[in-house]
């Protein structure tokens, strides 16, 4: 059978003892998960730490328990079960921790840790970084002049304009964020800004 062009050098027999290849396999896993990290944010969810976020220490075999668990889709527990048996998955506990952030026009969502921001300015900066887009920060600080509005879903399931309430109150009640085109916002049913409108 013709073997040219099949790239069979990759499949050559290896005669090593079992277990020898652990380091090599760990490296492949790391490379794989890093690739996943750059292409799609939608595979991770609140509970699954399935993506390695560190830059690239690919040579070192990391034996810590945290690294072992950071392979996408491993252990093979279905995503519904992961989300619902995680202790943080309770609907009554919101706020601190990772929230989903969506932006109109971007086909995938991102996750960000609200707890790592110090205030609205910090949040604006972080959102800019997340989507590589200058305008969001402006939306948060000086809403009326920007193409986008930043809204969030609170504990009660209502969509609120970000920036009204004190920061502490905001992070306690924010469940997810959305960066929405101002033009789409008019019919959306936002709660009114304040008494003195």
């Amino acid at each position, binding site marked *: 059978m013709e073997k040219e*062009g*099949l*790239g*069979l050098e*990759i*499949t050559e*027999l*290896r005669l*090593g003892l*079992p*277990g020898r*290849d*652990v380091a090599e*396999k760990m490296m*492949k*896993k790391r490379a*794989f998960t890093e*690739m*996943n990290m*750059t*292409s*799609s944010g*939608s*595979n*991770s*969810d609140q*509970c*699954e*730490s*399935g993506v390695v976020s560190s830059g690239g220490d690919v040579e070192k075999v990391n034996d810590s*328990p*945290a690294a*072992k*668990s950071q*392979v*996408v*889709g*491993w*252990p*093979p*527990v*279905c*995503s*519904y*079960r*992961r989300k*619902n*048996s*995680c*202790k943080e998955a*309770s*609907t*009554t506990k919101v706020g601190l921790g990772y929230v989903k952030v969506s932006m109109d026009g971007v086909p*995938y969502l991102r996750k960000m840790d609200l707890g790592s921001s110090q205030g609205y300015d910090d949040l604006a900066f972080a959102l800019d970084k997340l989507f590589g887009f200058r305008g969001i920060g402006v939306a948060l600080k000086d809403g009326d002049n920007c193409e986008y509005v930043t809204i969030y879903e609170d504990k009660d*399931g209502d969509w609120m304009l970000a920036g009204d309430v004190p920061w502490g109150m905001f992070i306690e009640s924010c469940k997810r964020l959305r960066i929405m085109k101002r033009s789409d916002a008019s019919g959306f049913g936002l709660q009114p800004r304040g008494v003195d409108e």
Partner: protein
Amino acid sequence: MNYFPDEVIEHVFDFVVSHKDRNSISLVCKSWYKIERCSRKEVFIGNCYAINPERLIGRFPCLKSLTLKGKPHFADFNLVPHEWGGFVLPWIEALARSRVGLEELRLKRMVVTDESLELLSRSFANFKSLVLVSCEGFTTDGLASIAANCRQLRELDLQENEIDDHRGQWLNCFPDSCTTLTSLNFACLKGETNVAALERLVARSPNLKSLKLNRAVPLDALARLMSCAPQLVDLGVGSYENEPDPESFAKLMTAIEKCISLRSLSGFLEVAPLCLPAFYPICQNLISLNLSYAAEIQGNHLIKLIQLCKRLQRLWILDSIGDKGLVVVADTCKELQELRVFPSDVHGEEDNNAAVTEVGLVAISAGCPKLHSILYFCKQMTNAALIAVAKNCPNFIRFRLCILEPHKPDHITSQSLDEGFGAIVQACKGLRRLSVSGLLTDQVFLYIGMYAEQLEMLSIAFAGDTDKGMLYVLNGCKKMRKLEIRDSPFGNAALLADVGRYETMRSLWMSSCEVTLGGCKRLAQNSPRLNVEIINENENNRMEQNEEDEREKVDKLYLYRTVVGTRKDAPPYVRIL
């Protein structure tokens, strides 16, 4: 056989129920094919892309019940990106257009939209049963259409779906005239529930046998619901974080005691341990118990409950039960047929001493002679344990073992687990489904190929050394239907050794293996009845066709047999060769 008129043969065929058997009889002769197809009421389609709705309806015009499966199994573990496919709308549209008298629709891993549900609810006057498992794409608005429009609805069963909960009043949409419900499961809904509407619905459904509530239904409501539905056979409770006050607790106990038909219990998403004793009175009747979402309950509380469940046949539990708890199960549940032990700590972050080991598995195998299905997540395993299990339980049909750490050897001998799994396949002659884990060489696949003659589904992860491993399986397991492999060193030589084989199987999944683009192209070249899909989410890697490197490894390969060629609804990152 041809001496009988068609009506007589048709009557005989009514007794042939299983899909496999009906498929077989349709192959006997033209006349039987014709009679069978016109009398077939239930059709099962394991891969929605293997056939299209028009051909289905053409062959089975009298179809009443349809089961469809969409995404491959590994989609459960986030290995298949969003928008890959599995859309149900074209099926519902086609069925509606052809005026098929659809009564039952069962979907697994498909994308269902509110639009599809609305169309479904309006198109089939006799529609009775909707079962959605691991589906996504719809909201409670879609459920409202089903509730409002399906006048004959008996069953609405939502299992582990991703549903956007708009906190609308979908339960209110069941008309007052709706009294036919036998099964209602909305455990996966995350939002608030209109408890008053639910109570009214349950009160007017005297045939309700199965009721599974979501988190939001509080304890006192549960007591009232059970009081007006003492005929329940299957109950899924919600979430009870706080200790109940004595009065609520007493009411709950009274209500539960009356439910003498209760055989199956599930839910308990978050449960204060003191609520459990309310259920003690009915434990002796239970044949199925699912506590696998009850992360907050400690081992000893679980054990107290289980000790009362002497008739249990099916148990789903978390590993917080510990080996000690499994010994109790082994001593108590002599009728046990199916056991699933899930990891309570999915990320491996805690040093969890309470988790289960090979000790628990051996105890169960020794104590439960009727055990035939097991799913077991554990930290460690030994060959000796697996050999003992094989000896104790030669009747396994499904054996899925997941050792949490990839490549982990026998923790006592440090050897691979080839011999242990080898013992399992050799002893369990009826084994149909197997998942392997831990440190494994090509040798385990030699055993599987040699002994697992009835094996239909095999899941492989982080295992094997060379192409020989995969070849042993493909050559040996003649009944293989679904083979799914991840992170294992199998490449083109194995993939291409017997291309015709794949038409005898439903599908093959290979991700993070050694197959290359060139190999996949070669595979697809002479296989018009296979769809060879390459899933590549990384945009940077997608080059122009004349620049692409055939030696490049393929991230995810999913191939399946089909009689309708390339599908038209694939997203840009799926390339069908």
